[in-house]
């Protein structure tokens, strides 16, 4: 693996709810290397989005608390950053794209202005003395982009393969299709030239042919700009098509991580195996799918056991007594299961 960019060690996050503390992330150890394309996969409630939010320092401040461990970016502990430093880190080092572009774009501002805002921020961060003018203070005013800025915005739009960028610059988000909006979001995220791009279910709201185009674009960006990408998805098939490395999460814990080919050809953790056997492939021809029995555990209760044990077909005595750590099961392949260590 190349130099580590993001490192989580024993990182735990809890949410305060009316039912008590929900252990959304439970002692997560994870390293993300430079220029990697990592997919975080798991079902709803497994903590993958929380991990994505933690990486960009956007955990909801009132309900979420870091209950232990650390998350560091290039060796700097993110939880110790002051708000101003965090603001600097966000955007220029790491950027995020969300599932629903329509709710993350400002409906009252033209797409070009929104991308220009990010570009102006970048210029001012690099050179605080710069005279470049930002958006007008009064929100209702239209922002006339200077020719230089406008051409930079158009370049960004071309980069994300938006056809006809001169016209799209002046469009409002509602005038664009879903795929175009997501491309505009990606353009905005990339315009601060971040090293790490966190994409939380970026294609879940899109149609499959559009999804294919957006995923292809992300892969291209990674290859062209060397951006590290952390893709959060519930869809193993999507992960298999684009990621280099796959991290499987269950109930707030990492249960398996390996190279993408390894995960799909040689899954070790019973949960990963279960997830893979749930995906229908080809016609039925009398085959039955093998669903994982049971449901996800209640995360408000602290358990000193393997959290998958009640649903696991291989559960042993030890599984209900202590929690497994990640064991080496192959080259760069780890699984948290007592089948592979003690």
């Amino acid at each position, binding site marked *: 693996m190349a130099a580590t960019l993001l490192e989580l060690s024993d990182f735990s996050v809890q949410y305060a709810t009316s039912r008590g503390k929900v252990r959304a992330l439970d002692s997560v150890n994870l390293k993300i290397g430079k220029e990697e394309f990592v997919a975080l996969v798991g079902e709803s409630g497994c903590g993958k989005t929380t991990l994505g939010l933690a990486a960009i320092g956007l955990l909801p401040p009132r309900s979420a608390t870091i209950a232990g461990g650390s998350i560091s970016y290039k060796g700097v502990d993110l939880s110790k950053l002051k708000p101003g430093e965090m603001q600097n880190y966000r955007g220029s080092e790491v950027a995020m794209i969300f599932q629903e572009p329509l709710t993350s774009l400002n409906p009252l501002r033209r797409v070009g202005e929104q991308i220009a805002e990010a570009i102006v921020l970048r210029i001012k961060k690099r050179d605080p003395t710069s005279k470049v003018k930002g958006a007008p203070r009064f929100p209702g005013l239209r922002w006339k982009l200077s020719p230089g800025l406008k051409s930079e915005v158009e370049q960004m739009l071309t980069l994300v393969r938006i056809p006809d960028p001169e016209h799209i610059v002046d469009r409002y988000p509602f005038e664009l299709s879903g795929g175009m909006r997501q491309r505009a979001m990606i353009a905005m995220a990339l315009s601060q030239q971040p090293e790490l791009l966190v994409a939380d279910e970026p294609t879940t709201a899109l149609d499959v042919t559009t999804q*294919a185009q957006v995923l292809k674009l992300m892969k291209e960006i990674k290859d062209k700009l060397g951006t590290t990408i952390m893709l959060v998805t519930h869809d193993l098939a999507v992960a298999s098509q684009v990621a280099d490395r796959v991290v499987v999460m269950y109930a707030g814990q990492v249960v398996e991580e390996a190279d993408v080919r390894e995960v799909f050809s040689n899954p070790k953790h019973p949960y990963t195996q279960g997830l893979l056997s749930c995906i229908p492939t080809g*016609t039925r021809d009398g085959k039955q799918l093998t669903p994982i029995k049971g449901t996800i555990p209640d995360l408000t209760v602290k358990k000193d056991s393997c959290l998958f044990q009640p649903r696991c077909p291989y559960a042993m005595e030890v599984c209900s007594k202590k929690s497994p750590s990640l064991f080496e099961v192959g080259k760069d392949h780890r699984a948290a299961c007592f089948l592979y260590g003690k």
Partner: protein
Amino acid sequence: MASEPLMRTVELRKYYTSTRGVNPLSRAKEKVVKAVDGVSINIPEGRTLAVVGESGCGKTTLARTMALLIPPTGGEIYFDGRRVDGRGVSDREVYRKLQMVFQDPDSSLDPRMRVKETIAEPLRGLTGMNGSEVKAAAMESLQAVGLSADFADRYPKQLSGGQKQRVAIARAISTKPKLLILDEPTSALDASVQAQILNLLVDLQRRYSLSYMLITHNIAVAAYLSDVMAVMYAGTVVERGPTSEILRKPRHPYTLALLESAPKPDPLNRTLLETEISGEVPSAINPPPGCKFNPRCPFAESICTEQVPPLTLVAEGHDAACHFLGKTA
């Protein structure tokens, strides 16, 4: 298929008119959205027809029109041996034999009804059963979807997503229908729960010799569950035929693109990154002239912008609507 299909449509159309603003003068510029534009499909008895396509292609409108939830603009619908669109047809008669399961059980289940009341509702409304018969039939239905009797007194909020969808299915099968129209039945569910529901649907079909019409955007689910498939694009069927044949040898360029872009859990076979498709589904108000797929089609020539290609037979029971079927052969 020699036998008469359980349900079929002939040139079914559903148009919506869109008016802009409240100005009556602008009514002159009224635009027509052809959500479903001349769809002829068959649902074979005891089998599953999957209607696949992307959002906005009209598949849900088609399902709702066929379920008589919205009146068609034109065309014919036949179900169980007789015509059911138009006047003189008792909805209740049809609904006893035709039920629907919706995508999101959170919005299709009444939050203030207990599970047993939800399941009993169609029985009360559509059959002449008395109280104890209704109760027995509801419990039977509940059991058929793999939920124990303890669930009867619960409210939807006390159930998980998968359990809620089971209740929705139990309600649909309570009147012993012949046909279930399933509108994205597993799209709101996690992978492991989706597998449970798919297994349940297969099991129920076998047990009660049900026919299904499955509406989905998920090719993997359609492939797994269906016997025959219809691919829709911008309100029309562009290809239809046996599922195995379409998967093996898709003939319409759109079907080809759709199958390529559908992600498969196989990192050694990254078809998704090779797909050439560009653009998006056209606007329904202002579709391109000729073949509606022509702006995105790699084979498009001038004829494609002038003439709408008819569905042409390419193999037994398999037809596709393209001017250049020779190029995909």
